[in-house]
């Protein structure tokens, strides 16, 4: 969907960093993140493993482990209120109903001791405005994620369900209170392809009905193409490029984005062996100066040893690169 210029963002991150503790010199997991999410839109967050995607999502929920939460700096405006400075305890009123999250590891995110019904109703109970009795609403929640025979499933415990089923239960729990912002951390990676497709359809459907905004974390560009309006590309704790999904696919400006896209098979581009990006991403303590991608970049030059500025490369499309690519991808 298109966002209107005049619309105010539901979420705005300004200069958000997460460090290993309070010290300004402590190693940063994510650094100087600026990101806006508007009501009803889906922003994709892509990048190699370890680039800081989950950390960014957890920072928005204020669910970082204590040391990292202490190392959180910058401003996170949710609906006009800076939530980066709220005490962690005050966040409970926003969680679930306003901001919710589908966690990356669904197998482990259900409590093994309590039944599915118990864990669902706990959240539902907090929804003061909803009508109908708890039991009926819990059944409805399971139906909404297409769990067969939901009534009997309520009495089940997590270990009695398959992985795909658990994933959907976690989805149901995260969505029952109709959040206005959903952070979905690789919600489909452990599902097989058909179930994955169903789950994405379901999310889109719910999004349309509830005008929910989504931050969609994934490794999978197929999923990005299907789900997202805009994409932010993360490398070594920074957002290196951000723009509308078509522009990112067709005219990537950052050399990292292009390398990432080329390592993905597409219908008209499926070579025998996929090119992989040479080298590996730096650890949080060993990040190079200047452009963090320069040790792996095919175009690295001495200028790249200075930190690149964020430049506009198109409408609402910007990249942190001294020598951004201009050409249409695949045209050369």
């Amino acid at each position, binding site marked *: 969907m298109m966002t209107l210029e005049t619309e105010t963002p539901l979420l705005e991150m300004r200069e958000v960093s997460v460090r290993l503790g309070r010290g300004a010199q402590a190693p940063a997991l994510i650094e100087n993140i600026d990101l806006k999410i508007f009501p009803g839109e889906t922003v994709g967050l892509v990048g190699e493993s370890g680039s800081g995607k989950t950390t960014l999502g957890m920072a928005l*929920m204020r669910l970082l482990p204590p040391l990292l939460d202490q190392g959180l700096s910058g401003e996170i405006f949710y609906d006009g209120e800076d939530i980066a400075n709220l005490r962690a305890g005050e966040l409970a009123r926003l*969680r*679930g109903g306003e901001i919710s999250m589908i966690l990356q590891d669904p197998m482990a*995110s259900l*409590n093994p001791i*309590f039944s599915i019904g118990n864990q669902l109703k*706990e959240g539902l109970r*907090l929804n003061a405005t909803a009508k109908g009795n708890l039991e009926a609403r819990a059944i409805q929640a399971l139906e909404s994620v297409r769990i067969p025979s939901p009534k009997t499933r309520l009495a089940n415990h997590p*270990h*009695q369900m398959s992985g795909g089923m658990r994933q959907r239960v976690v989805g149901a729990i995260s969505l029952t209170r109709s959040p206005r912002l959903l952070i979905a951390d690789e919600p489909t990676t452990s599902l097989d392809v058909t179930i994955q497709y169903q789950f994405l359809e379901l999310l889109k459907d719910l999004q349309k009905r509830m005008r929910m905004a989504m931050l969609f974390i994934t490794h999978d560009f197929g999923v990005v193409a299907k789900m997202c309006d805009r994409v932010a590309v993360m490398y070594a704790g920074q957002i290196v490029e951000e723009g509308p999904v078509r522009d990112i696919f067709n005219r990537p400006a950052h050399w990292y984005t292009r390398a990432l896209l080329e390592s993905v098979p597409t219908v008209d581009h499926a070579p025998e062996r996929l090119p992989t990006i040479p080298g590996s991403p730096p650890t949080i303590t060993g990040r190079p100066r200047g452009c963090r991608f320069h040790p792996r970049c095919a175009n690295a030059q001495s200028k790249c040893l200075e930190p690149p500025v964020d430049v506009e490369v198109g409408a609402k499309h910007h990249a942190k690169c001294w020598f951004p690519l201009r050409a249409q991808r695949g045209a050369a």
Partner: protein
Amino acid sequence: MLKIIATRVIEAFIALLLMSIVIFLLSRLTGDPIALLLGDGATDADKIAMAQELGLDRPLPVQYLNFLGNALTGDFGQSVTAGKQPALDLVLSRLPASLSLAGVALIFTLIIGIVFGVLASVTRNSPIDVAARLIALVGQSVPSFWLGIVLMYIFAVQLRLLPTSGYGRPEHYILPAATLGLFTLAAITRLVRSSMLEALGSEYIKLARVKGLSESIVIWKHALANSLIPVITFMGTFFAVMITGAVIVETVFSWPGIGRLAYESILSRDFPVVQTVVLVITSLFIIANLLVDILYIVVDPRMRSRG
């Protein structure tokens, strides 16, 4: 679930049977019961007559079956002292004092240990946490006879707040229960603290918070429920520690339980009573473990659907 419980019950019976064999054999290997019963002045003829009377001249398996048969009818022989009282009666009359002391100690250590462990885990490195770690260290390294004497000296002799010994009123329980419970309190505090820390870092705690649940529900429901499982696992061990600790604590505080009975009857070489105490304690131990197993199955849904 019933099937698993039935299996556990059968296992407990087998354990009881094996235990009776071990105790029987030990009783025949350690010393000569006839010499004990007759005393020093007995002649050989007396001894042979006695052996025939008691069936001690027959083969061991036959003797064992006799022993088992007698045990099943409650006949464990008679005390050699104390007016030839039946050994079982003597032991059973002392049992309530021991069980009530162990019960009081266990309930209080569980409550205090769990609360302390939880508070320590959520206020990591705070004064509460440091105090909890200190108690854990001290409680597991101080010998209980020493602790008992020190407590008695401070609270009974110096401050005169509590009685040094006696049995029957609530205040009589305080010092012996504290002495008996400190080791277990330390163990439970440590166990709860470490399993809470593990639980608090888990994904299901993140999900509980994502839902918008209050911190108190996250901690006292979601994290604690999981942290209690290891505590239940160790309950059998805690019980064993309390029972063995009872011998020392009951002796220090002159508590009229089976612990002190065991101590006294060992000193007076009252062999049938010692044997009966051992039998009763091991039976209690097996029963306690059975109850713990059942509790475990009831609490942890993953155990319930197994087998």
